[in-house]
């Protein structure tokens, strides 16, 4: 509806610039970096859970062993699933901060140079308003 319509018209004006960016080695490299991380990470993490379920099927006695008081191995592993979920998300977050954002910034700066020569306003406006928002949140992040 209205939301998507407005947005497609916004991007339509910058079509040529976008096409150039898409063709650039930098953008293609960024996409590669992203895919090279996201897909193996997803597969590995799903495999880890499915394998864990399978292991419990073959290590029943072990799973029932008590660790502390009433808490058995199965329960401890259950808790570790929460920990591993958080750990993968944390690693992804760090990786994205280190590898995606700097490249994205570099492409943006390059595009800003390009954009000033083309008479296209919507993209320029958004490009210039975005950085302050990012600065603001990165401060919030360090506090949180």
């Amino acid at each position, binding site marked *: 509806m*209205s939301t*998507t319509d407005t*947005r497609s018209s916004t991007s339509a004006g910058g079509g040529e610039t976008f096409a150039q*960016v898409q063709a650039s080695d930098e953008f293609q490299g960024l996409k590669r970096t992203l895919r090279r991380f996201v897909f193996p990470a997803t597969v590995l993490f799903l495999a880890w859970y499915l394998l864990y379920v399978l292991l419990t099927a073959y290590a029943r006695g072990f799973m029932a062993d008590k660790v502390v008081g009433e808490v058995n191995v199965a329960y401890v592993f259950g808790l570790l699933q929460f920990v591993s979920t958080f750990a993968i*998300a944390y690693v*992804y977050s760090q990786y994205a901060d280190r590898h995606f954002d700097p490249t994205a910034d570099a492409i943006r700066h390059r595009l800003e140079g390009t954009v000033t020569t083309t008479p296209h306003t919507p993209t320029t406006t958004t490009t210039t308003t975005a*950085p302050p928002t990012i600065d603001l949140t990165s401060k919030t*992040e360090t506090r949180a």
Partner: protein
Amino acid sequence: MTGGSRGLDLVAVVLVVLATVGIGTYGLRLARTTSDFLVASRSVTPLWNASAIGGEYLSAASFLGVAGLVLAYGADALWYPVGFVAGYLVLLLLVAAPLRRSGAYTVPDFAELRLGSRSVRRLASLLVVGIGWLYLVPQLQGAGLALRATTGAPVWAGAVVVAVVVTVNVAGGGMRSATFVQAFQYWLKLTAITVPAVVLLVAWHGDGRPDLAAAAPPVFPDRTTVQLDETVRVLVEQPVDVVLDGRATVLDRGPHRLERGSTAVFPAGARVPHVEGLAATSGDAWARPLSGAGGAEHPLYATYALVLATFLGTMGLPHVLVRFYANPDGAAARRTTLGVLALLGAFYLVPTVYGALGRLYAPEVLVTGRTDAVVLALPTAVLGGGPLSAALEALLVAGAFAAFLSTSSGLLVSTAGVLVQDVLGGSVADFRRATLLAVAVPLGLALPAVDLPVAQTVGLAFAVAASTFCPLLVLGIWWRGLTAAGAAAGLVVGGTASTCATVVTLVGAEGDGWTAALLAQPAAWTVPLAFAVMVGASVATRSRVPADVGRTMLRLHAPEPLVLSPPG
């Protein structure tokens, strides 16, 4: 059931309702335009937003349902909370950032943007509304059961209270107010479930730490009175002396019918008769994964299917995706997700405690089959009445109502948002009408009682989402070859298969053996089926790949500042 503290429980419910409406009204002043209603302005900080997501996500299934399933089915039920949390990781890795960049607020928006097809959009809208309703029904049912268990009010009362409060709140304030309300609800729920758990554990310690996984199936710890609010069929494994409606009698080995409205008094130490369909389980099997505790069919398959449904279904839940737009950028979205994982993980440590203690102290829920009631029954069962147990019970009721209200509000905002965009006009007045429509249907469905525990119904909503929106989003974002025809075919096949399985399970006609396992946990076959149909049909119609797929893909994957613009 827990007589002495009825007044206090009611006060707790009223306080939560007042706080919800109060904070909602405070947020009302900030809601002005349609876009404010649908997505709060992007000024929400990651921690605030993570609390709101957690608050909205922790539903009746999490607060009451998980403990009940742990009690009945043992270690395998732990996969419910693990999957509820891990679904956010899949969402983060595969979907969150590209979808944010696309500017599509909802899955129907995304479908139209990516495939340029109004019909796929309408199909997706239909599914959003269906999943929203399927998820709302157990919330309202949970409310009815909770209010009855604690105050003796009829089942419809709790459902109606929750339906009315969320309708007023959502129709009045939209998501901006919801953000405040939800963040508050998360911390209320965490407190409400943790404080009683600590007290109960201390009491269990003081009780000489009786074995939580004793060799024998559950027995009544004390002389126990069971009120039957519905007619149930129970299976008695050892003859038991029971006082049924004041008359002493013996229930022999075998099935027995206990009439609605009757009262059964069981002596201390007697084996607990289990409701039909729930098998009595030794403590050893209960504590061991994949043992088929509770009579679960094909536990290895069921666990895999549950893992798939929850991991892949989270991204397709109507109230989950929209929250990610409240982040100003991708880095904040990642921080928010980390926060969500931590907050949800912290919460889900606790319901297991209730499940384990409930097996020991409140096994009477196995007679009625209403295992969702165990959380609320435990304070009285462990502490034996008195002001402390009354206070803890009131706290738990408050937390439970926070869960019903917050999840229902989130679902209602999203469902009504899709209804107003695709069915009605799009003005603020239409949003209010859409809200009424969005709540009326699930309320109608919740009133005739369904026997399924709330967490299982919610699990089915996840399965439907995983069988429809997961392939649409994942293929739409990562595969250029997806066509409108392929997406439509996949949505129809995945949606039909998972919905049929859901309906059959909800009406209790799933049979037994493999049929029951495949229908009660359909995701393991419906998700691959939907993916296969979507890919196959897209390849068959590959001449119809949208011409502007290159630009759309750039928009989804380009660095954010290029495409970030304020929501219209």
